[in-house]
């Protein structure tokens, strides 16, 4: 790992880029007085609409554009310093790879540029091709690839050197939902493994899912910056997600809320399955059935050569595999649940933390008086970020009241009336 001064991987101050025409006349101020500070192990999102200066910033950091004003340090050195490139992986906004090479040759070429030995190149190429799901088409020239496949091989070339800093410019652009999900999972996993990731995108959902810190640019200027969990938290509403509740349970909850918050307008509805989840489920089923495809397949895990947190190699691989598979099975179980009815109440903070039926079951079970805490081992099994800012006291209070009420009425342990789906209050 590079010794980074001030413990910052990327630092800019007053970074400005002005494009001029042939005669030196100022034409466009692409980036203006941009101050950035990206710490090691951070997944940093650079957000903004088209033309906001995201890619220009990255190109200045990589020495592909000159800095008009201000300064930048990347891994402690000036942009364009060839030595630091050993530690950087870069995926441009479009996949600029040689169309006459096939996937293997492409990775081999970039591996050679990093001075990797033949044995090491072969090992990494196999691993990366497997990871991005292009092993079967690795002998096909890249010029014949679809945009999504090119994106995948572009990502693989960015990882061939096991970089400390990964700069991804619109990494999910052109990818199908599975590819998008995989790349997001991969970014999370790389962040967990100690990589610093600078992610540049205008796809807000992608950034929200994976980033620790974000900076929003508009017109080349920084509009806001901060931790995702702090910027996105809403203090004006609470959300409860549960299995489908009986009508009387729902009425009771509504009564309680109306009693405590008489002026608040309640919105109770049944959530729909997300199209992304439906798509992932269908494609996963097709993949499981080993249907033929001439394109990319679902990749497996993460390249095993990528720097690991000590002693967690196997676990990490298992976790990432489970992430992809687990989410799919979660969708499947949800769909299956439509026919069999709810198995209990589920409470989920507003985040993508996978649902744990055992915990949720216990919440509504008469014998339970409190949610089962998530232990450390379970945390490791579900590495996506929890939104700790969600206020659980309201939900738990409601449920305690509900359980107490049920006990008082000596309600039956079996719930006779059930409906398909979930309620979202």
């Amino acid at each position, binding site marked *: 790992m590079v010794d980074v001064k001030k413990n910052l991987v990327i630092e800019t101050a007053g970074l400005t880029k002005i*494009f001029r025409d042939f005669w030196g006349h100022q034409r466009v101020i692409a980036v203006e007085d941009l101050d950035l500070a990206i710490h090691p192990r951070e997944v940093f999102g650079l957000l903004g609409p088209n033309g906001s200066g995201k890619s*220009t910033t990255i*190109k200045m950091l*990589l*020495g*592909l*554009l*000159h800095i008009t004003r201000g300064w930048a340090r990347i891994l402690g050195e000036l942009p364009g310093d*060839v*030595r630091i*490139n*050993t530690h*950087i992986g*870069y995926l*441009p906004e*479009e996949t*600029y*790879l*040689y169309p*006459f*090479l096939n996937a293997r*040759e492409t990775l081999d*070429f*970039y591996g*050679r*540029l*990093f*001075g990797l030995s033949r044995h090491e190149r072969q090992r990494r190429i196999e691993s990366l091709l497997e990871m991005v799901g292009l092993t079967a088409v690795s002998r096909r*020239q890249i010029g014949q690839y679809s945009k999504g496949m090119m994106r995948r091989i*572009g990502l693989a*070339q960015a990882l061939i*050197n096991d970089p400390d800093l990964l700069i991804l410019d619109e990494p999910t652009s052109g990818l199908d939902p599975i590819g998008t999900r995989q790349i997001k999972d991969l970014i999370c996993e790389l962040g967990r493994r100690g990589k610093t990731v600078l992610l540049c995108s205008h796809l807000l959902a992608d950034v929200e899912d994976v980033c620790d810190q974000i900076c929003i640019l508009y017109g080349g200027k920084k509009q806001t910056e901060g931790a995702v969990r702090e910027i996105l938290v809403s203090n004006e509403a609470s959300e409860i997600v549960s299995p489908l509740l009986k009508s009387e349970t729902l009425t009771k909850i509504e009564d309680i809320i109306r009693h405590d918050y008489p002026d608040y307008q309640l919105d109770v509805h049944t959530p729909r399955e997300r199209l992304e989840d439906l798509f992932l489920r269908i494609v996963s089923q097709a993949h499981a059935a080993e249907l033929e495809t001439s394109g990319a397949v679902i990749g497996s895990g993460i390249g095993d050569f990528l720097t690991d947190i000590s002693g967690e190699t196997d676990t990490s691989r298992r976790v990432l595999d489970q992430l992809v598979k687990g989410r799919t099975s979660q969708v499947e179980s949800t769909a299956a649940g439509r026919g069999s009815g709810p198995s209990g109440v589920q409470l989920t903070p507003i985040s993508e933390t996978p649902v744990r039926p055992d915990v949720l079951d216990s919440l509504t079970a008469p014998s339970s008086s409190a949610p089962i805490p998530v232990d450390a081992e379970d945390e490791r099994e579900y590495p996506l970020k929890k939104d700790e800012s969600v206020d659980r006291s309201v939900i738990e209070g409601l449920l305690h009241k509900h359980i107490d009420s049920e006990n008082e009425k000596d309600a039956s342990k079996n719930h006779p009336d059930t409906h398909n789906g979930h309620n979202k209050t």
Partner: protein
Amino acid sequence: MILMSRIWAISRNLIKEFLRRRALVIFYILISSSYTFLFAWWIHNNEGQADEKIQTFLSYSLSLTAVMLSLLTFFFSIATISRDIKRKEIFTVLTKPLSRGKYLAGKFLGMAVLNLVLLVSTTGVILGFAYLLKYTEPQSDYERAKLDELVFVARQGVQPTNLDMPDIKSEVEKKVNDKMAELIRSDPQIYQGNPQAVDAMRFNLTKDYTNELTMRYRTAPTDGTILWHFTGIKPKDHANKSVILRYKQEPYPQPPDDHVVNEWMIGPRNPLDFGGKGLRTDKQIVRTFHELPIPVSEVSEEGELYVLYHNPAINRATIVFPTDNGMQALYVAGGFMGNFIRTVTIIYLHLLFSSCLGLAMGAWLSFPVAVLLVLVVYVLGLCSTFVDSALTWAAGETLRTTMNFILKIFPKYSLYDPVPKIDKGLIVPYGMLLSCLGYMVLIKGGLVSLFGYVVFKFRELARVIA
């Protein structure tokens, strides 16, 4: 080691790029093989002496190969960089631990290897056809022997001095001064107060009178003589049986049958004082090169040979030996294969310079602009001899000096052209090879590459220059 592997990675990629562009490969193979084959076929089916046929074949095929490969080198070396920049593949390459200088070095190395492969393969085919023609074309032992003496050989040419010719410098100067005074008197409006015009006219007159007076001493009037003196002939080093006197004549007035008779007296010492061996050649066509074998015994140990030419009265014409190799002595100084290898090496050096030029322009300009520029340079280089002589007519010392300086930067392909030598069985000297290497590749190619490197190092790669 790692550094070389990175440079070699770029080179390998360039070679793959060429090979994967099938249209380019097919185009080259078709063109190069077709013209070589067509020339050989055409030569085989034409009337003529075997030596002339093979000389023609060698001349056309080698010249065309040099031109074809030069054009290919220009186009491909420019394309490989300008496409990298335009299609932005350079973003993913130069964000790796590879400096811009090493990127250019890798491209150059790739071009060098590619050119070597293409040149060796093409000239190998030419060599094969030449030897095939050598064994199929001669109709007699005489023709076969002539081939060995005139074509499949490397002969050294020696230019003579004219012993009758005095120092003409003062005479030229006097004639120029007289003429200038006359011109200023007759056209005062042009020359008075116009030093540039005076200077230009003085320059041209000097050149004209020098030629005129030189020609006077290369001219034999009817029943007149010229005494030529050759030095530095070393035929014994290579076990020559004879030394060849190669000459061309221009008679004034033109004889009715275009033929003249020549008489010679040759020897190791001045024939006018010591006598010599007399030779007579009957009825030779004029304005064509002829070769007269002279026994090697006529050359002195010090390499001196005297040739006294006599223009018999029967010719009824003045005979002029033109300045462009109108008279020279040839002797075998090496083998054909060595000569061929030197020829191919010089063509390869041309291609190395072309690669430097193409890469430098590709790193600086967009593809069409760069191609246009290198084509201009290439044509000027091919016509460098013509341009040099044309420049002597340029008005004004300042303009002429400036233009000469600018043209020094341009490559002089015609100055280092080995083909006119090898096709006549003349030796391609090591001096030409070394001069081409030093002057054209190391100095000019180095300067051009340095320019390209500096521009490339400081340019913004993420900005496409249209």
